[in-house]
């Protein structure tokens, strides 16, 4: 299929065609990036990439100087998740490049389109263990969708075009372009080639056969207890409105993966919420009793399925998926539909109608009623601050409209449970890799992608400290985000596992924090400390109205746990429930303050 541009969703850009010019490889890098619609890159200079940096002032591209290259990769990732476009990180050879590795692996696990441009030692030195020479294409081979080592100036522009095309098409992913220093320095006669990229071995588009679609339709119409899974692929494919249409037509309820949150409105009556390890009891129970699963753009991760042997035993499975390598990888499916979720829904929709699942819906309502008093409602009001309350209140005070970027741990699961996202690309979180330190830099990337969004970081005190140095980048680059640190004094999620599975031995999980208010101030930013629920609102509003990045240090209950929980590898409906608190006469601190919050 002809590709109109290598980064289709990029804003149209009118670049005057200057004809043939004599440019250095370094200048060509920026020209080629501009032609892909790149407006901002996140990076850090050093020896092998210095020619490129020297040529940067001649470009329209904004450069954000990070404090650690991991931050650059996460910023590019956050930019990509928030915008649907390709994010770009730049680093030097050797340690600069290896610092990107965590961020690249993170993007790979979550199928995020980023392009990393790294300097490499001169081609004449490659293989000689020259200063700061590291085999970066070797290192990144298993954690990139594809990578390139460029040693000739002539190859820079075509390679950058290919990199963007590969990163953003099909199932997206990170691409590394490692460019030798001499290739950056040499000058050639150059003219940008606007023709579409053609790669003979790369065919990202495919569609199911008509008979497969017919079979899917029959399976859906015959099902009595069907359930739809909304995964990340729905968001990636911009298929959220088609999914809504599917649900309106068929009445089938929707369970979501962590990365699928926002792909279907959380407050829709057919939304069951997140499934899997920290999904609500009714969601996982419904999955176990379903007779049909329609899985859209998800990959049956082990955090979603629990024990594979007992997983959804009665359900036929339709797997709508772009990547054929995902079919039957974890769960054996009855009907794979290979292709773009949006295209497939578009083809299926005209043939679907309301099925016969009234009894099923009533049953699910019953399950919900069973656990309608959500765990959190039973939290005694002991004057302390509970993380779920903070997140629920944040949801309320931001009208559920903020773009939230979480880190990894308990707060991440509480966010998924209590911040109800109704729109796609408003929750950015590290799912596949679970990379602590993701939140702050990813939020900064999102800020540059979505200047009009209200952006909130929700991070634990552990993960926040992993990339807290990027606060200085916020200050230098005037990047404003709001940061909620859920400060429980522990590496909470690990502490929870120690409590449940390691006899309560809290080894290496108590963690000290700096004074976050002073830390913010030291950067010329604002900081607020909150210890009572009654102070949450004022702090949130203060942060929103501050012009600069504002940190709120929420001192929450230290040893709270995320419930319910399916222990790793256990049956999906064998969950650990919150122990019933002694209700006594203690006044309650319910999270649902009005009836329509449910």
């Amino acid at each position, binding site marked *: 299929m002809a590709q109109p541009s290598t980064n289709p969703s990029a804003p149209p850009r009118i670049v005057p065609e200057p004809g043939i010019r004599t440019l250095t490889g370094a200048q060509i890098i920026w020209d080629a990036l501009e032609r892909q619609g790149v407006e901002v890159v996140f990076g850090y200079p050093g020896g092998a990439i210095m020619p490129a940096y020297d040529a940067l002032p001649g470009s329209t591209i904004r450069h954000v100087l990070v404090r650690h290259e991991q931050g650059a990769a996460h910023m590019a990732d956050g930019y990509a998740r928030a915008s649907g476009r390709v994010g770009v990180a730049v680093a030097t050879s050797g340690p600069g490049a290896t610092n990107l590795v965590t961020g690249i692996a993170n993007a790979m696990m979550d199928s995020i389109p980023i392009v990393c441009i790294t300097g490499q030692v001169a081609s004449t030195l490659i293989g000689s263990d020259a200063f700061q020479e590291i085999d970066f294409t070797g290192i990144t*081979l298993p954690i990139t969708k594809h990578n390139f080592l460029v040693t000739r100036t002539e190859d820079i522009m075509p390679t950058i075009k290919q990199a963007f095309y590969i990163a953003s098409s099909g199932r997206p992913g990170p691409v590394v372009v490692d460019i030798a220093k001499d290739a950056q320095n040499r000058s050639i006669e150059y003219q940008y080639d606007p023709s579409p990229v*053609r790669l003979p071995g790369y065919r990202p588009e495919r569609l199911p056969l008509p008979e497969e679609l017919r079979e899917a339709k029959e399976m859906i119409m015959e099902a009595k207890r069907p359930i739809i899974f909304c995964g990340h692929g729905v968001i990636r494919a911009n298929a959220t409105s088609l999914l809504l249409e599917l649900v309106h037509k068929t009445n089938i309820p929707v369970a979501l993966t962590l990365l699928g949150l926002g792909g279907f409105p959380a407050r829709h009556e057919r939304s069951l919420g997140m499934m899997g390890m920290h999904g609500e009891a009714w969601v996982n129970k419904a999955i176990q009793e379903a007779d049909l699963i329609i899985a859209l753009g998800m990959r049956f991760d082990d955090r979603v399925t629990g024990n594979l042997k007992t997983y959804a035993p009665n359900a036929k499975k339709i797997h709508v998926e772009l*990547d*054929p*390598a995902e*079919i039957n990888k974890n769960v054996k499916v009855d009907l794979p539909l290979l292709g773009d979720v949006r295209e497939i829904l578009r083809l299926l929709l005209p043939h679907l109608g309301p099925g016969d699942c009234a009894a099923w819906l009533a049953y699910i309502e019953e399950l919900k009623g069973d656990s309608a008093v959500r765990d959190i409602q039973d939290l005694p009001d002991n004057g302390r601050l509970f993380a779920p309350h903070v997140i629920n209140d944040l949801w309320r005070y931001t009208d559920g409209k903020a773009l939230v970027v979480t880190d990894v741990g308990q707060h991440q699961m509480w966010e998924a449970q209590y911040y109800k996202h109704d729109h796609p690309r408003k929750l950015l979180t590290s799912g596949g890799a679970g990379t602590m330190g993701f939140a702050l830099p990813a939020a900064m990337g999102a800020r540059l992608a979505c200047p009009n969004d209200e952006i909130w970081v929700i991070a634990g005190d552990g993960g926040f400290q992993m990339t807290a140095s990027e606060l200085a980048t916020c200050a230098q680059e005037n990047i404003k985000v709001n940061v909620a640190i859920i400060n429980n004094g522990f590496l909470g999620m690990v502490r929870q596992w120690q409590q449940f599975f390691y006899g309560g031995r809290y080894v290496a999980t108590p963690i000290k924090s700096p004074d976050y208010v002073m830390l913010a101030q030291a950067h010329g930013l604002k900081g607020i400390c909150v210890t009572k629920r009654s102070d949450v609102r004022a702090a949130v509003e203060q942060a929103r109205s501050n012009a600069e990045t504002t940190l709120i240090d929420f001192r929450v209950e230290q040893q709270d746990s995320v419930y319910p929980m399916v222990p790793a590898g256990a049956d999906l409906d064998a969950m650990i429930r919150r122990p019933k608190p002694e209700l006594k006469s203690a006044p309650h601190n319910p999270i649902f303050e009005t009836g329509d919050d449910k």
Partner: protein
Amino acid sequence: MTAPNQPTLRTFVAYVEDQPGVLNRIASLFRRRNFNIVSLNVGRTHEAGISRMTVVVEADDDKALRIEANLYKLVNVLSVEDISKQPNIVRDIALIKVKAPPEKRSEVLQLCQVFRARALDVGPDTLVVEVTGTQDKIEGLLAILAPFGVLEMVQSGTVAMTRGDISSAAKSIAQERPRIAVA
């Protein structure tokens, strides 16, 4: 017939771009996905710039499909085909250096003939023989020669081709060919 989901030896033919690092990408993929390579051969084809690989892997039907799908994900892989279930020709080549003092030489040569193995080198006390065929045949010859004393042996990876008409992997390459030069 074997049951559909028993692991068996599967033979994949893949056309790949002849570029530095492609073999590494494929080896890395098999290692990372925990697919065990039984045999791997890469060599040129009649088309410049395209290499052909033959990979033998132990896999059941599901795994075979996933191997194919994962190979396709590599940008430099042009086409892949699992030829295990089609009529095909599978060949290995082995060179065997066997102890053959003058008094044993004709006996060894006679046995080799049964296997259609050829003598490539005759030394004062040794013979180097070449045998082409399936793994079974090579093992058969080795067993027969063992009592004489096998001194060295080297075996290529398996190469394979479908019988009859052009294979679908090769056909898709022929169709892709005009596009290859464009970057």
